[in-house]
């Protein structure tokens, strides 16, 4: 049908269309006849829907050219090797390994022949290449690259699909903005009225389009630099969208908070980026070879003979992932002469990478860890992980469709996606950090969600909690499990957000759950689609049958990985226990939400009487998403979705041994996970049912009065509803000190210098006193002088407040002396002939490397 070269083109179209949409829509205010024009929305929907079609086509083309090998009923449990379905980083040499593997299995005969038929362009690895080179500084190339594997394609399809649904929903939801005189009831002007402004319908869609463009750019990015740029763009878009109602103080504060929190994470990202670039000398993820394919279809398509890899220039032949790990997915760790662990870089054919002088290129293990932690810090900011999670609930200030997009497909998913992308760069220590951060996040957010009463806030905290799950999954070695949950979560969370948007729309912007209740009679579609989402996130299933909603499968996969990890590393048992408890809590608060909102008796008749079901343009996306939320993960880990994702799993994830003497943890292999799977699933199910049951008892059946519980545990309730005091903590830890320090510095002249001079003036008074006593005691004739000196003291007081120029000159003198002392401090005193030579150029020295990890 289409040749493989079409795949990047499809994705590029899907990626750039929203940008085009943005460019047109942002000027819609100029060309539209009036504020009631819906053209902008139509354009936005058309762009993103076309994008979805293109993504689907790309996925389909990719499937054809891989012979749907990803979906072939594979050898789970048949003792297959990890490599057989994991996409390798580099092309050529894997071909043989793959062929060998296929040989085991009669089922693969077709696929194999398919491979042979398209031997010259069959896709065996990620497609990488360059769309456009922006700039080149020496060895540093800044370019727009792509890196396409099945994960990219699945993400693209998912993002475009969900975004289409959300766009569609938004055309209904935002219709209030279709006016020349929008009255914002939450903004009070000074004279007591409400704030009036023109509607911003078109602007909303413009930013929505830009947001999608940024996210898609992040997904398709083929190098870290591009990731960073789009990473920032996503942040900027969220800034605009969260602050959509800029007139509301809470909204602009929330937008600022989101932006600044993300910048804090980006600080770490920058450090990681710099370390990686310094040592690896490249930004790009995978190997690419632009001249081979014109517009950059890279080694993934072109089957090279293994020996050709050696001839290519090493820096071009391998990307970051290939350099950090060999094709077996192992870090090559070398104990350097000083006992410092270093990681030796490899190239395409698994031999070590040499630099221009023939030395092994390596990176200290510690620095690789730091780089990993830095990158993960970026993920923490973007995915709202502990301790930077506080911006996400505040971000609810944006319109609900934005929340849905932010929470499901785009911004927060970006962090998880990046953590998964960079999995090969993470050392065991980093993975353990990720696991613990995820674990803490999941638990903390879930507990806060129990007490939240704003319907959107509950969902926000549940998002944070689920993101924690995903991070945990990645951290314990469950690469596929984490991403699996990312996709399923995207469906059911977008569904729930849109449903809550529908509720809010129906209830005329009422968001407090205590004012709702019994709404299912008024809005049945919303209620039952919401129920589908709730069941999915709670992870319910019918025991003993394969009937289960998507959330069960993905959560099950994560819990199984965590359990296997705990078996392998008993000291980290919390990594299993906490998520299990959290699973129960999740079920509890989600059902609490549903019962609170839809079941029972109406608690506020004013709200109830005026509420109505949403129009069809809003309910249709709900139904579609509900079906997918229930069924997208069909088949669980044998199903197509999971297999598609794990097809691009980095090599060696399934069977990762601890590299000797460096890491303290063992990552579970596939067999280990499989062995505990049913056990873990049982535990998770029990927890989920327990939570559901309690929720039903308390909120559905009313056995326990929640208010009573709240009274009895008031301190705990306060603690939780104050979000574990994080905002206060940050205020005390960061905001106030910065204010203090800045006030110090701004008042540097006034406070420090003047303080100094005040001290001196006091001294002067003393001197004057002595002077005076001398005058009085000894010479009467010096009365005039005394008067003069007291006058001058008083004068010097005034001088101290105002006089500056002479202080400045004084400061030249003092600074010269001070700096002289400073140079003194850095200047070695003794004989300077023994210059330190040895410690500096460790990395370039040729070190005979013992053969390790080459099983």
């Amino acid at each position: 049908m289409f040749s493989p070269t079409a795949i990047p083109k499809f994705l590029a179209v899907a990626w750039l269309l929203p940008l085009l949409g943005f460019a047109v829509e942002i000027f819609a205010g100029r060309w539209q006849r009036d504020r009631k024009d819906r053209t902008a929305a139509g354009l936005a929907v058309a762009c993103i829907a076309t994008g979805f079609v293109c993504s689907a086509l790309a996925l389909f083309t990719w499937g054809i050219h891989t012979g749907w090998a990803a979906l072939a009923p594979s050898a789970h449990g048949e003792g297959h090797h990890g490599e057989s379905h994991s996409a390798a980083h580099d092309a050529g040499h894997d071909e043989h390994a793959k062929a060998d593997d296929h040989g085991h299995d009669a089922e693969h005969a077709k696929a194999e022949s398919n491979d042979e038929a398209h031997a010259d362009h069959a896709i065996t690895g990620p497609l990488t290449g360059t769309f456009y080179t922006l700039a080149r500084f020496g060895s540093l190339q800044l370019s727009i690259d792509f890196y396409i594997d099945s994960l990219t394609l699945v993400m693209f399809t998912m993002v475009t699909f969900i975004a289409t649904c959300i766009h569609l929903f938004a055309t209904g939801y935002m219709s209030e903005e279709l006016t020349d005189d929008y009255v914002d009831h939450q903004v009070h002007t000074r004279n007591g009225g409400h704030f009036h402004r023109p509607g911003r319908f078109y602007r909303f869609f413009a930013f929505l389009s830009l947001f999608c463009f940024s996210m898609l750019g992040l997904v398709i990015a083929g190098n870290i630099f591009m990731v960073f740029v789009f990473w920032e763009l996503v942040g900027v878009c969220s800034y605009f969208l969260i602050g959509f109602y800029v007139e509301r103080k809470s909204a602009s504060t929330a937008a600022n908070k989101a932006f600044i929190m993300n910048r804090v994470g980006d600080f770490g990202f920058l450090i990681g980026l710099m370390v990686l670039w310094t040592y690896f000398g490249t930004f790009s993820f995978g190997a690419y070879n632009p001249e081979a394919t014109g517009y950059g279809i890279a080694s993934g398509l072109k089957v090279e003979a293994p020996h050709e890899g050696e001839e290519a220039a090493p820096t071009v032949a391998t990307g970051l992932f290939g350099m950090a790990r060999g094709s077996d997915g192992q870090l090559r760790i070398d104990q350097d002469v000083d006992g410092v662990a270093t990681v030796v870089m490899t190239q395409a054919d698994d031999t070590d990478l040499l630099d221009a002088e023939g030395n092994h290129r390596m990176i200290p293990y510690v620095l690789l860890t730091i780089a990993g932690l830095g990158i993960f810090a970026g993920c923490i900011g973007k995915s709202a992980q502990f301790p930077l999670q506080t911006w996400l609930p505040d971000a609810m200030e944006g319109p609900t469709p934005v929340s849905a997009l932010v929470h499901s497909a785009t911004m927060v998913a970006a962090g998880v996606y990046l953590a998964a992308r960079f999995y090969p760069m993470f050392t065991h220590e980093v993975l353990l950090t990720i696991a613990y951060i995820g674990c803490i996040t999941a638990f903390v957010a879930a507990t806060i969600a129990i007490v939240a009463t704003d319907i959107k806030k509950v969902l926000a905290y549940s998002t944070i909690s689920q993101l924690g799950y995903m991070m945990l999954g990645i951290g314990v070695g469950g690469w596929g499990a984490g991403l699996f949950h990312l996709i399923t979560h995207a469906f059911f969370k977008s569904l729930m957000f849109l449903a809550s948007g529908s509720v809010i729309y129906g209830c005329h912007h009422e968001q407090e759950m205590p004012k709702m209740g019994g709404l299912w009679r008024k809005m049945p579609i919303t209620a039952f689609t919401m129920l589908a989402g709730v069941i999915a996130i709670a992870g319910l299933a019918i025991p003993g049958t394969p009937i289960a909603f998507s959330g069960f499968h993905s959560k099950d996969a994560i819990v199984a990985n965590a359990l296997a990890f705990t078996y392998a590393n008993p000291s980290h048992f919390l990594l299993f226990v906490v998520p299990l408890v959290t699973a129960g809590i999740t079920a509890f608060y989600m059902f609490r939400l549903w019962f609170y909102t839809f079941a029972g008796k109406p608690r506020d008749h004013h709200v109830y009487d005026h509420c109505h079901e949403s129009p069809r343009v809003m309910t249709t996306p709900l139904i579609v998403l509900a079906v997918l939320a229930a069924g997208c993960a069909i088949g669980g880990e044998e199903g197509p979705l999971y297999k598609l994702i794990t097809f691009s799993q980095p090599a060696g994830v399934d069977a990762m041994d601890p590299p000797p003497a460096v890491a303290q943890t063992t990552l579970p292999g596939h067999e280990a996970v499989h062995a505990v799977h049913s056990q873990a699933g049982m535990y998770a199910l029990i927890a989920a049912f327990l939570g559901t049951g309690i929720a039903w008892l308390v909120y559905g059946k009313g056995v326990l009065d929640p208010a009573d519980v709240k009274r009895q545990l008031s301190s705990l309730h306060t603690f939780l509803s104050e979000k574990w005091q994080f905002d206060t903590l940050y205020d005390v830890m960061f905001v106030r000190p910065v204010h203090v320090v800045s006030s110090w510095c701004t008042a540097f002249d006034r406070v420090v210098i003047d303080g100094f001079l005040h001290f001196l003036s006091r001294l002067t008074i003393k001197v004057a006193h002595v002077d005076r006593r001398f005058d009085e005691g000894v010479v009467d004739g010096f009365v005039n002088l005394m008067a003069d000196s007291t006058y001058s003291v008083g004068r010097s007081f005034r001088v101290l407040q105002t006089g500056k120029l002479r202080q400045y000159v004084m400061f030249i003198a003092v600074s010269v002396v001070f700096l002289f002392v400073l140079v003194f401090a850095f200047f070695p005193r003794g004989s300077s002939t023994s210059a330190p030579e040895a410690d500096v150029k460790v990395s370039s020295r040729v070190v005979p490397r013992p053969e390790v990890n080459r099983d």
Partner: protein
Amino acid sequence: MAGVDLTAYLLVGAVLFVCGIVCMATKRNGIGVLMGVELVLNGANVNFVAFSRYTSLGLDGQMMSLFVIVLAAAEAAIALAIALNFYNNHQTIDVDRGSELQG
């Protein structure tokens, strides 16, 4: 010139230099501050001429001091014009009165 060596001249230069700095830092009369500048520059000048006599700096040292004298004159002209301007605006030459710009 027995007994007089380079260091003695440098001592004079140092005294001029330090006196100039102190003068700039203490005088509240703007013209007095400018006199301090002249002292500082002369301290350096004494150094230059001494070096030109005693080290291989030679003619360069004297040349440098000539240029310094000329540049100092130019600077004094501008500085005095600015001081007069200051006086016209503030009705005093007390530098402590000019402290509207701060913070």
